[in-house]
C-alpha cells in the first residue's frame, strides 16, 4: 500500500501538523492509515490530542498493543529510522518494510534528509509543506537537489500558515499558485485554533470543527486522494 511521505526542506512550516491532520482526515474517509513519526521531537501525537508524555508504540515492536487515535494507528519510528537493517531494506527498491494493506503516513524531520531520500522510492507521494514567505520559498530548491522542482513527479506542495492579511504572504501564495500550479495541492490558512487545540490536548476536529484550517486540510486531502488514486473509502469496505 502507498506510503505518503511528509517532508519539507525547511523546518517549522507545519509539516507535522499537516501529516497528522491528513492522516486523521484520511481515516475519516475510510482509509486505515498508519502514521509513523520519524522525528526526534515526536510532536505528531500532540495533534491527536495526546499528552506530551504519552508513550506510543515503537515501529517494529510487535509486543506492545496498538495505539489508535482518531482512527489512525500511531507509531514512533525515530529508532526504526536509525536502524541499519531498516535502511538496508529500504535500499532494495523491490522490498518494502511496510504492511501492504495499510496506508502509511510518514512524517520525516526537515533535517533528516537521508531518511527522506531512503523512503522516497517507496513512497507514492512526497508532500512538501512550505509557508508563504521568502525563506520557505528559497528552501524550495532543496526539495530535491538533484532535480528541478518543476520536474518532480512524486511531489506535491502544500502552502501552510497563510495569513491573507499580510500582503507579502498573499502575494507569495499567488506566486506559488501561478508558478507551480501543477504541484500545488492546496493552501492551509493560519488559524489560531490549531494552536489552541494542541494546548487543550484536543484534536482540532473536536476543538473547533468549523476551523478554517481544518476546512483547508480537507481540500488538501481531496487533492492527495486524487493524485494517488486512493479514492474515498467507506467504512466496512476495507480489505
Amino acid at each position, binding site marked *: 500500500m502507498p506510503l505518503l511521505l511528509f517532508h519539507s526542506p525547511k523546518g517549522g512550516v507545519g509539516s507535522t501538523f499537516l501529516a497528522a491532520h491528513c492522516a486523521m482526515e484520511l481515516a475519516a474517509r475510510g482509509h486505515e492509515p498508519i502514521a509513523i513519526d520519524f522525528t526526534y521531537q515526536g510532536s505528531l501525537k500532540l495533534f491527536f490530542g495526546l499528552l506530551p508524555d504519552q508513550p506510543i508504540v515503537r515501529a517494529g515492536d510487535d509486543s506492545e498493543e496498538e495505539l489508535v487515535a482518531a482512527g489512525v494507528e500511531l507509531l514512533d519510528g525515530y529508532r526504526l529510522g536509525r536502524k541499519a537493517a531498516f535502511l538496508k531494506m529500504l535500499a532494495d527498491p523491490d522490498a518494502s518494510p511496510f504492511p501492504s494493506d495499510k496506508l502509511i503516513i510518514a512524517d520525516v524531520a526537515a533535517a533528516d534528509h537521508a531518511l527522506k531520500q531512503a523512503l522516497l522510492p517507496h513512497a507514492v507521494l512526497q508532500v512538501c509543506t512550505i509557508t508563504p514567505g521568502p525563506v520557505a520559498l528559497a528552501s524550495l530548491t532543496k526539495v530535491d537537489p538533484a532535480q528541478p522542482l518543476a520536474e518532480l513527479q512524486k511531489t506535491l506542495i502544500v502552502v501552510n500558515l497563510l495569513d*491573507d*492579511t499580510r500582503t507579502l504572504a498573499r502575494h507569495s501564495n499567488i506566486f506559488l499558485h501561478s508558478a507551480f500550479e501543477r504541484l500545488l495541492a492546496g493552501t492551509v490558512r493560519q*488559524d*489560531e485554533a490549531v494552536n489552541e487545540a494542541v494546548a487543550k490536548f484536543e484534536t482540532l476536529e473536536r476543538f473547533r470543527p*468549523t476551523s478554517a484550517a481544518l476546512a483547508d486540510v480537507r481540500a488538501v486531502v481531496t487533492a492527495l486522494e486524487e493524485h494517488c488514486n486512493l479514492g474515498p473509502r467507506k467504512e466496512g469496505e476495507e480489505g
Partner: protein
Amino acid sequence: MIRQLHLLRTAATGVVIALLCVLVIVVPLDLQSQWLFAGLTIVAGMLLARRNTRQSLIALGILSLIVSSRYIFWRTTQTLDFQNVPALILGSGLYIAELYAWLILALGLLQTAWPLERPPVEIEGEPETWPLVDVFIPTYNESLAIVRGTVFAAMDMDYPEDRFRVYILDDGRRPEFREFAHEVGCGYLTRPDNTHAKAGNLNTALGKTSGELVTIFDCDHVPTRAFLQMTVGWFQKDQKLALLQTPHHFYSPDPVQRNLDVIDEQPGEGDLFYGPIQKGNDLWNAAFFCGSCAVIRRQALQQTNGFAGETVTEDAHTALKLQRMGWNTGYLGVRLAAGLATERLALHVGQRIRWARGMTQILRIDNPLFGRGLRLPQRLSYLNAMLHFQFPLPRIVFLTSPLAFLLFGANIIQAPALMIFAYALPHLYCSMVSGTRSHGHDRRPFWSEIYETLLAFHLVKPTVLTWFSPRKGKFNVTDKGEQLEHSYFDAHIVKPHLICIGLVLLGITVGAIKLAFFPQFFGIQLDTFVLNTAWATFSLLILIASVAVANESRQRREHVRIPVDLPVTLHFSNGHIVDARTKEVSMGGLSARFDPSLDLTDWGLTHISLSMGSETLVVEADALRTRNQVITLRFQALNLLQERQLIRAVMGRADAWVPDKPLERVTGLRSFIDIVRICFLTVKRAFAAKRRGSATPRVPKVAAVRLETAAIAEIPGARKRVQKPIKRLNKAAALLGLLLVPALLYAPSPAHAQNDAPAAAAKSASGERWRREVTLRNLGVRSPVRLEGVRGEIGIPFGMRRDEVVTGANLTLDLSWSPALLGDVSQLVILLNDEVIHTIRLTPEGASGTTVTFPVDSPLFLPGDNRLNLRLLGHYSRGCEDPFHSSLWANVSNLRSRFQLTFQKLPLGPDLARLPRPFFDPDESLPVRIPFVFAKRPDNSELEAAASMASWLGSEASYRGFDFQPVIGQLPKGNAIVFLKSGASFAGLPLNITGPSAQVMRNPADSLGQILVIMGRDDEELRLAAAAIASGRGVFQGEHVTLSSAQIPNYPAYGAPRWLRTDRPVKLGELTQPTFLQGSGIRPGPLSVQFQAAPDLFFWPRQGGQLDLHYRYPVAKWLDKSASRLDVSLNGEFQRTLPLGSAHWWNWFFDTPRAASADASDSVLLPRYYLYGQNNLVFDYQMLLADKQECRGMVPQDVHTSILPDSTIDLTGAYHALQMPNLATFANGGYPFTIYPDLAQTAVLLGPDPSDDEIRAFLILMGRFGDSTGAAATRVNVVRGEDPQAFANNDLIVIGDLGLMGNEALFSNAPLANRGGQLTVTQRSPIARMFHAVSPFASDERSAAEFTTGVRKFQGILEFESPFEQGRTVVAVLADRPGDLPALVQSMANLRVNAQIQGDLAVFDGSGIRSFAVGPGYWVGSLPLWIRVAHWFSTHPLLLAAAAILVALFVSGPAYLLLKRQAERRLNSESEL
C-alpha cells in the same frame, strides 16, 4: 394529385375553422345560454391553464382571444345604444378604452406566444482575432461614485485586453471624471454641447472610435465579467445582427418592491418586459434596444447615421431604424449586468413620463405600421410596445367608469347587468388566466393594473400632448443612487389617486343611498348596483394599493446592499479566522452568516478576506454588530484596487444575477388577497398615523388627511342634493297614489277596432225611410265610457254613408254618476260635431242609473266624418276642490247607449266611378254584407272570381267586418254582386256578354239596390273581369266597362301593400293622419297607430323592430315631471314607459317657471314576439299634476301632446323565416298564403259539391286575406278532388266537412286523422318523438287526444307541412257540420278568439278555441344559410362554447408548429418566414 387533395383538405378545414370562429364570435345568445357558454369556456380555460405545456398555453391564448372578441363584438353591436348625451360621452369613452384593451390583448398574444430562449454562443477564432469592441459609458450628471463601479466592472470584463476599450462619455464635462479616467486607464470622451442628449453623446463617441462592435452601459449598469464573452459570439454567427440586447437587472428594489415590502419575492417591474416580452419580440426579430446593456454593430449604425436623436427614447427608435434597414436584432435573456432601480416614486414616474412621451413620439413620427423595411409581425410587435404607453386614458376610464352609474345614474353599457356579467366574465377570466400563464412568475396577476394606475394620471398629459405635438419636449435624466433620510408619504405624487379614491368612495356611498332609500326615484336596480359597486371596489383596491407605494420607506444606506452568497473569511485580532458566507454585500460593508457553534462577541475583527480564484481581496473592516450568527461589518476605506476587486467579486461574476430558483408563480386569488392585505394595512396605517397625531408629523398623516377630506368633504354636498328630492318625492308619491286608482279603473282601448258584432242595424223598409239603431259599441267604443275630473271628456268619431241622409235621430244615453256630485253645478254636456245637442244635469237622485233619450237635430249629421263628444263638468264642492277628486266621475254604457237614426236613401245613379260604393261605404261603421249571386252552383272559376271580389271588399271593410252569402239562381234585395258567364242568364238581366266586363245597374229585384255584374264569356274572362275590378278601383267610369285589356298587378313575395315595408324605416305620418297622433286635454287618452307586417319577420340576432319615437309635451310648473309619463304598448303588451321631463335629478335645479314645450326622443324595442300580422301601437300620455293640493289646483286647459309624425317604425334588416306550423300567423295574417298577396301560390280545395256555407266560409276567408294584405286574391286556384299539379306547387287551404280527410295522401302529415268517422290524434314513431324534442313547441299529444275526442261536433283548424312539397303548408278548416264553417272563419275576426288560435291544431269548443302543438315542425321562409346556422347555434350554447374550445385547440396545433419553426429559424439565423 395527392398533394393537391391534401392542400384542398387543409384549405377546407381552414375555411370550416374560420367559419366556426366567426360564428363563435358573432352569434348572440340570450342570458341563460350566454351563462352556459360562459361556464363552459371558463372551465376550459381552467383546464388549459392547469396543463403546463407551450401548446396548451397557445390554445388558452387563442381561447381568450376568441371570447374577448366575442365580448367586444357584443359590446359593439348591442350595447352602444345610448339614452342621452352624458351616457353617450361616458359610454363611448369606456367602449374605446375596451377596444384599446382588446387590441393590446391581441397584440400581446402574438408578442408573447413563444418567448425565444436564445442561448449564448461561443466566440469563434483565436482571441487575437475577436471583434474589437468599444464600451461606451455615457454620463451626464451622475456622481462619480456610481460611474466608478461601472467603469471598473467594464474594464474587468473577460475579453482580450487589447480587443476592447472602455470610454466614459461625459456630457457633464467634469474634470474629476477626466482625472479618474486617466487614473484607471480608460478612455474619456466629451463634447462641447449637449445636443440630442444621450443619442448625441453616443454619436459623437461613435465618430471618435472605430471598434467593430459598440457596447453601451448606462453609468449605473455594472456588467459581469462574462458580458462580452456571452454576447459577441452572436455577431459572428449572424452577420445581419445589428443589436443584441440583454436584460436590465436591478439589484436595488424598485419603489413598488421597496415600499410594499409586505409582499415577499415580488418580481421587479422590469422582469415582465425583460422576460416574456423581449424574448417574444425576439421571436419575430423585433427585440428592441433599451439604451443600455446591449451590443451594437457599428456598420449597422453607420447606415442609420448613428443613434436616433429625434425622440426622447433614442433606444427604441434606433432599433426601429436599424430594422427598417433590414438588420436583425436579438435578445439574450441572461442577466449580464445590473443597475440601480429608480429610488423614489417621483423619479420612477418621471422616467416613465419620458418613456411614454418617447414611444408616443415614435408612434407619431415614425409609425411602425407604415414605412418600409418591416415584416408584419415586426410592425405589430413595435406597435404593441408603443401602444402600450397609451394606457393612461383607458386605465383612468376603467377606474372611474362605475361612477357614471353610481353618481349620475348614467347607464354607459346599454345592457342588463346580468347580461354584462355573462359576456364579460369569460372574457375577463380567460384573458386574466392567459396573461397570468404567459407572464409566468415575472408578473403577478393584477399587478399590471397597479403599475399602470400608479402612472396613469401622470402620463395622460405627456401622451396626449405628444400625440398632438410630437416634436416637443426635452430629454430628462433619471436620477439614481439617492438617499432618503426619512420615511415620508409622497402625497403630491398620488394626489390624483387620492381624489379618485374619494370619488369612488363617494360613488359607492351615493349609490348605496340611492338604492336603499330612493330606488324608484333614481330608477336604480340591484343587479346594476352590484355590478357597478363590485367594479368600483376593485378600482378602489387598485387605487389604494397604488397609493401605498407613495409611502416612501426610509433608505439611509449610502450603498445599495446586494443579496449575494459568497464565502468570506473573517480575520480576528486573536489570530483566529472564521469562514462565513455573505448575506448581503455593498460597497461599504457586508453581513455574513457564520457557524452557530461560534461565539464571536468579544473577538476583535480586523480584516475580511474574499477569495476570488487566484486572488484574494482583503479589506480592513470593523464589526458593527453580531447577532443571530450574522455579523454585520463595515469596510474601512477601500483603495482603487480593492474597490475594483470588490466589484468583481460581488457584481462581476458571470452568475452574479442568475436567480437561484425561479420566483414562485402566484395564482390570481393569492395575488388578489395580497392586494387586499396591502389595502387593509395602508388604511390601517393611515388611521393609526392620524391617531398618533403630531408624533410623526410628516409621515402618512398626509394620506390620512387626504383620504378624509376626499371622502368626507364631498358628502355634505351630496346630502344637500338629495334632501330636496325627498320632499318632492313625497308629494309625487301622494299624487301618483291618488291618480293611480282611477287610472287603473279606466282601461283605455283602441278606438278603431274590429267590429265583429252583427250590429243593431235594423233596416225596416217602410217606404223609402230606413231606420237603424247604432250603439256606441258599433261606433267603436269597446268598453263603457268613464269620465273623470272636473272636466272629463271623450270624443267618439263615426261616419255616415254618403248615399243616405239622416232625417231624424234620437240619442239614448244610459249613464250613472257619482252621487257626490252637486246637482246644480254638475252636468254632462253632449256635443255632436262641436254643437251642444243636450245637457244632462247630474243630480244625486239619478246617480245610480238613468236612461235619457233626446232628439238630435238631423242636419247636424254630416255625410262622412262625424264626432260625438261627451263632456263631464263635475263638482263635489262649491269652494276649492281637487280637480281629480275620486268622486268626480260619470259612466256611460257603450252597449245600451245608442243612436236611433231614420234616414233616406239618396237616389244615386249607378256609376262604376263610385266603387266600392254603394256596396261598401267607408263612412259607415257597420259590417259589410253583400250577397254573391251565381246563376247556378258556382264552378271553380266563378269561385276564383268571387274570391277576388271578396278579398277586395274584405280589404275595404277591414275592421268593420264583412260577410258574403252566396245566392244561387235568384237576385236578392238590396245590393249584390253577380257573376255571370256566357250561357247563364238571369231574369231581368238582359245582358249580352262580349268579353270580360263589368256593369253596375239598379237591382231589378229592388229599386233601392244596385248590383254589380261581373261578366265573361269563359272562365278566363270572368276571372279577369273580377280581378280587374278588384284591383283597379277608382279608374272606371260610367255603368259599363269592358276589361279585356286590364292589367292585373303581379305582386312579388311579401309585396302586400298593407305590410309595412322593411327596406326603410316608415314614418308614423305615413301610416296614419298626423291629427290622430295629437292628444288634447290633460287626459288625452290613448293615441294609436295600426300597422300590419309580415308575420314571419325574423329579426335575429336583433330582438325585434325598433320604434324611434319623437314626442312632444308641455313643460310647466303644473306638470309633475317625475311621475308623468308616456306609456307605449304594442298589441296590448306594455313595452316601455318614457319620461316626460328628464328623470335626472339635476333637472330639479333647472326647473323653468315658464311654460314651454319639450321634445324628447327615445327608442323602443318592438319585440318580435309581440309583432303580429296586425298590430296596434298605443301611446298613452299620463300627465299628472305637480301641485295637487286642495283649493290650489287649477286644471290646465287646452293641454296638447303629440307623437311627432316623423317618428319611425324600423323593421329593416329583418329576414323572413318562421318555424311552422303556427296557426296564429294564419289566423292573424293569412300566413303563409298571403306571402303572395294575390294568393298566386295558394290552392283552395273544396268538397266536390260545396254547400253555400262552405262557399261562404271560403269567401269570408278570402276577405280576411284581403284585409291582411290590402290586395285582392286575383290568382287563387280553386280545386276540387285530386289535382296533383295544384297540390305540388302551392300552399293548400282545405275547407269543408270531415269527409275531406278521406284524402289520406293529403292528410298524411296532419296532426289529426279521420279513421272511419273517428278522429284520432296522430301518434308519432319514437324516432319522430326524438326529433320532436328539438321542436320549440310543447308536445301535447295526449291532451289534444283527450280534448278532441271530448268534443262532440268537431270544428277546427289544422296546419301541417304539405306531403307534396317540402316547406309548403296545408291549412284545413274543417267542421263536422259545414253549417258551422262560416262562424268558425268569422270568429277569427274576434280578437279574443284570434289570440287563442295557435300551434297546429285549433279546436272550437263552442265558446272558445283550444290550441295544441302536436305535429313536427318545419321552416318556412327564406333565410340565408349562415343566419340559419348561426341561429341554430344560438339555440345550442354548449355546442357554441364547444366550438370555441375546438377552434382554440385546433388552431393551437398549427400555431405551435409555426412558432416552433420560427424559433428554430431565428436560432439558426436563417432567413425568416
